[in-house]
């Protein structure tokens, strides 16, 4: 699904957290959102998901303004994995993923075999199928994160919003989650801190102090000047030992 942010401005108690952010993400595209702590990435995610209303501007998903859709209609189109979501309830891993089916169920549309299948598939995608019976409290941070992602996948969204999805994950699972998102063909916007992971996305948006300072293909959006200006580090391009893959290396000056 295509998503458009049109001149989004958001403020809380007189403090402007986002000003005049506009961009379009094409169907199937993966957009990386990078920026320092407090630059507004999570806030932008919440606006895109319709969890907060912009002060001005609007979000349009597949041609429909999000503000015109019901919560249920939004949830059938957009799934979000937030930065922090924990529970003290005693629930199993599987039942957390089953929550992803909520927007598709109702009194007239009970749980079906198809729902079980979607849940199984999502669990397999994040490699958590053999831990499905485990209790939430007994899982590690990375395992919980993978379940949240599986829950979002079980929602069968047209747009996937991931706020630092690689948080808590070991290298193998970081790469496999990013890879699976790329293969999925679902439009994805994800906040990332690792600029080299952002390099692997179709396009990159750089946020700084609530403003969109650059947007484009990775090597263009993450120019060395932008990186040093926004993040306050000195950056340079390097090449992997094999020779062809470029990567950013950085250090404080």
């Amino acid at each position, binding site marked *: 699904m295509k998503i458009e942010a049109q001149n989004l401005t958001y403020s809380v108690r007189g403090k402007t957290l986002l000003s005049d952010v506009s961009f379009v993400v094409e169907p199937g595209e993966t957009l990386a959102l990078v920026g320092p702590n407090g630059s507004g990435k999570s806030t932008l995610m*919440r606006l895109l*998901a319709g*969890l907060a209303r912009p002060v001005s501007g609007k979000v349009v998903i597949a041609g429909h303004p999000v503000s015109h859709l*019901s*919560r*249920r*209609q*939004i*949830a*059938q189109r*957009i*799934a*979000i994995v*937030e930065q922090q*979501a*924990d*529970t*003290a*309830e*005693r*629930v*199993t891993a599987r*039942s*957390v993923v089953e*929550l*992803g089916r*909520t*927007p598709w*169920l109702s*009194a007239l549309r*009970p749980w*079906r075999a198809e729902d079980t299948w979607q849940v199984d598939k999502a669990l397999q995608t994040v490699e958590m199928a053999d831990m499905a019976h485990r*209790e939430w*409290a*007994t899982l590690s941070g990375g395992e919980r994160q993978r379940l949240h992602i599986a829950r979002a996948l079980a*929602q069968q969204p047209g747009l996937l919003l991931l706020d630092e999805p690689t948080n808590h994950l070991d290298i193998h699972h970081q790469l496999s989650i990013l890879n699976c998102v790329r293969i999925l063909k679902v439009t994805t916007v994800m906040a990332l801190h690792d600029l080299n992971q952002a390099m692997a996305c179709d396009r990159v948006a750089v946020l700084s102090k609530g403003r969109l300072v650059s947007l484009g293909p990775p090597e263009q959006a993450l120019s060395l000047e932008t990186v040093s200006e926004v993040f306050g580090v000195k950056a340079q391009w390097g090449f992997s030992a094999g020779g062809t893959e470029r990567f950013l290396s950085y250090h404080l000056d």
Partner: protein
Amino acid sequence: MNEVAAIFRQGFKAACLTVPLLIAAVLAGAMIGETSLSPDLVLSVLANKLAGADLPVDPIDQGIIWSYRLPRALVAASCGAGLAVAGVVLQALLRNPLADPYILGISAGASTGAVAVTIAGLGGGVLSLSFGAFNGALLAFGFVALLARAAGAGGGRAATAQIVLAGIAGSQLFNALTAFVIAKSANADQARGIMFWLMGNLSGVRWPDVYLAVPVALAGWLICRFHARALDAFIFGSDSAASLGVPVRRVQATLIFATALTTAVMVSIVGSIGFVGLVIPHAARFLVGSGHRRLIPTAALIGAVFLIGADIVSRIIIPGQVLPIGVVTALIGAPAFAVILVRGQRSAR
């Protein structure tokens, strides 16, 4: 078609399990007391009254069973079920394991209302204690709801804390008002009577109370059961529920209002019986887990059976005297809760 059949089959299975248990509990409530009566006798009375049979029964026994014990047992069941379900729902919505139906100021408000009518003489002796209690409960709930709103309990993480804090403020205020009225104008007898009522008392229950309590408990149960999936979605907070397509504000408003109303009705009939709304939900969760589709019916069943049992105990434990039922629920509930707490911790590890 298969799915509909499956749902009916599940409902049927659940009913096969719960209905006999409930009936057995109600029958036990009718049999046991200061004078024990046989099951045959209870069944004969039921046949006489419900099916118009003409079996020979001692009219005094018939009176005890039909006019006193049966309504008592039925109201106890409704109350136990209503309070337990209210507890389950509030604990889920407020994401607070300490939430109980009285956290919204309802019990404090009810006692103020009861005191205002019986001691301060509001309404000139025409209004009943129940009427005063019901209105006091709603008044206090209104106060708490407004305060929570003013404190900005719109949405998000902080909102649930605001509701709990507003509830505590409301409860303190109304409890102080009650104490003030008692200190100012009650004599020792009145104060004692009020204390007795506050801890829960089923001895004044008659059939008209049944006609109020049973439908209210059923309606409350239905509304909450209908929202079971939405309640499940709250386990990661209200934002997460919203992102799963739950209309959070509407669900919160509907359910909080339904539980407040159920609780207010129950408290106005029997006083504020503590512990049921707090402990039964945890016991039920311990048995069937956190999924609300099973949790709500289970809590209702345990609550109903538990309160019938507590009522029986309150009648027979001290011969010739009735103990406030709240004392019994706390005396049984607290140790039971401790056991659940310890065992629950162990099995979670």
